[in-house]
């Protein structure tokens, strides 16, 4: 039998089943906590830290921390929001994100969060790293300029027998995403499409398609990120 427990977010009383991750519990109570690396229904990794909250005064990632009875969670505070904004800014300067020409513009979670947190000019200097477009796969184009290394593709895109199609190679600054040469080539069109959709940014692109949805009709044109949760 599941047990309902009580906790607060920014002083608002909430209820959820024990063991639910904070980010999900918040969602059930109509409160949006931003996420990037998290995928609903897939084991969380807690790598991007954008979902950071304070639990009883201590910073935690809300996508990996289950709620417990009596927890006092801080979410929408100036301090936490500035940390989130700093993370977004860091992601922007670490890659080459030219939103106006990107196919994902309007449907990109990073861009949507930058709007939500009113990012203007990043506080960090731009790195302008040299990165490549890899068009060798017959199914997908990988634009390393835009990859935020969230690992969503690694965790969510698997063959029918459960094998990973994507993986990381190298480490540190040189880490990047690769596709298994055989599995990548054999990938079904549906799985390729799923990979495009799972990628929060425009790092995985479908071939010979782009800008199909007119400006004004794109995902976040219609519903700014988080607003679907907040209006419930």
């Amino acid at each position, binding site marked *: 039998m599941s047990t309902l427990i009580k906790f607060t977010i920014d002083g608002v009383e909430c209820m959820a089943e024990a063991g639910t991750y904070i980010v999900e519990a918040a969602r059930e109570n109509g409160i949006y906590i931003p996420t990037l690396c998290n995928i609903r229904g897939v084991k969380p990794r807690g790598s991007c830290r954008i979902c950071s909250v304070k639990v009883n005064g201590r910073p935690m990632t809300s996508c990996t921390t289950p709620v417990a009875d009596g927890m006092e969670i801080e979410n929408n505070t100036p301090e936490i929001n500035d940390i989130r904004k700093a993370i977004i800014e860091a992601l922007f300067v670490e890659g080459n994100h030219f939103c106006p*020409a990107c196919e994902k513009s309007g449907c990109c979670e990073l861009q949507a969060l930058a709007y939500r947190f009113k990012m203007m000019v990043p506080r960090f200097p731009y790195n302008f790293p040299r990165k490549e477009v890899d068009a060798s796969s017959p199914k997908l184009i990988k634009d390393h300029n835009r990859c935020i290394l969230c690992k969503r593709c690694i965790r969510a895109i698997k063959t029918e027998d459960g094998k990973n199609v994507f993986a990381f190679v190298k480490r540190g600054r040189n880490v990047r995403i690769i596709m298994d040469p055989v599995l990548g080539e054999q990938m079904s069109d549906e799985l390729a499409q799923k990979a495009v959709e799972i990628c929060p940014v425009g790092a995985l692109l479908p071939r010979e398609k*782009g*800008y199909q949805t*007119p*400006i004004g*009709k794109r995902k976040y044109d219609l519903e700014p990120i988080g607003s679907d949760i907040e209006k419930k």
Partner: protein
Amino acid sequence: MGKKITIEPVTRVEGHGKVTIHLDNQGNVTRTRLHIVEFRGFERFVQGRPYWEAPVLVQRLCGICPVSHHLAAAKALDVIVGAGTGDGLTPTGEKMRRLMHYGQMFQSHALHFFHLASPDLLFGIDSDPLMRNIIGVALKHKDLAVQGVMMRKYGQEIIKATAGKKIHGTGAIPGGINKNLTIEERDAFLHGADPLNIDKMIEWSQAAVDFFKDYHQQNQSMIDNFAAFPSSHLSLVRKDGALDLYHGVLRAVDAEGKKILDDVDYQEYTKYINEEVRSWSYMKFPYLYHLGKENGWYRVGPLARLNTADFIPTPLAQREFELFKAYTNGKPNNMSMHMHWARLIEILHAAEMMKELLNDPDLQGDDLVTKGTKQNEGVGVIEAPRGTLFHHYRINDKDQIEMANLIVSTTNNNEPMNRAVNKVAVDYMTGQKEITEGMMNAVEVAIRAYDPCLSCATHALGQMPLEITLYDANNNLIDRKRT
């Protein structure tokens, strides 16, 4: 002792230009040069990008006429995706793009005429620079300033409805368009509250042409002689010789009206047009191969288009076209300041075309994109507000852009702008010992007739900053004047 004069506009993003004028010991002009830094970098920048990004990427070349780049690139990619050229698209695809283009032409020409050119005309070339700007126009001729603003707004709304945004939209995609026009959008453009409806736009466009004709009558000698020089003219024309700003074949006529190029499929432009590099300018000098570097240069833009076309396929603009042609007895018009006249006739044509398109039910169609057999190379050409614009792409077997070549309108007008500046320098500087304000203004006005990218933004808010520096033959600075 020879002298060298340098006129250097302190510019912003559009480009950077300076004028150098060389005098001999008697004060005669021996040589003039207009130096422009332009955007070669973009041709490298797009290399390696997936080809379908090109129309969205390259429009960032320019904040003034992004739609032209957007459409020229999309036209080149139509060829690559096997949709062919011109009539290869679905009626909705082609007509939505045309509407976008005429909206762009309308707003860009309106900006140029009301904001950039009208101050020169209303206040005179020698007038106080403090008045000779759009603020001055607004103070003294409020109705004109308001019309300029509203016409621009109307054109921008058309762009937004077709491209998705007023600047840097995404509407044109390889093989077609990503949206149609809703009935509500259409009705707003056709019957919106005054002044934002198409009939008012046509009325104001006609009034602008009439304004120019009056002005011309009163200032005939200046308008006819200022920076005038003979040249060839090049543009697209429709197969039947009609003015067509979106699609057609290449035609060029010489100063006497003889066709020196006709019915050329622009996919083969490299067979007919070559680009010369000169050591002192970053901008290339295009010319017609078969006539050689010396004689093969040509003008593009509104004046060139009215010189190459046989007629205009809308009634009001055609009537004005006939008057325009009659003024030179049917011969090509080589008077630089008549560029303004031609531009206004094109505004009228663009307004009439928008009305025709808005009344066409094809704009509400759902069949938006065509695809065929893939090609690895394509050329797109369009008549941009400032003239013929070439985009040429080649892709590799992984769909990445391997080669891009762009010949922008201002590049096509490189030699003519140099000639215009030379003409002004000879007229105003010969025998002069000092740089006059009138001289500086005249150089600026001559360049501006061509509406090159480098001058737009700087002048819109006031004066294009100029600096003239005078050197003697030994390169010693002897005088410097700034506006």
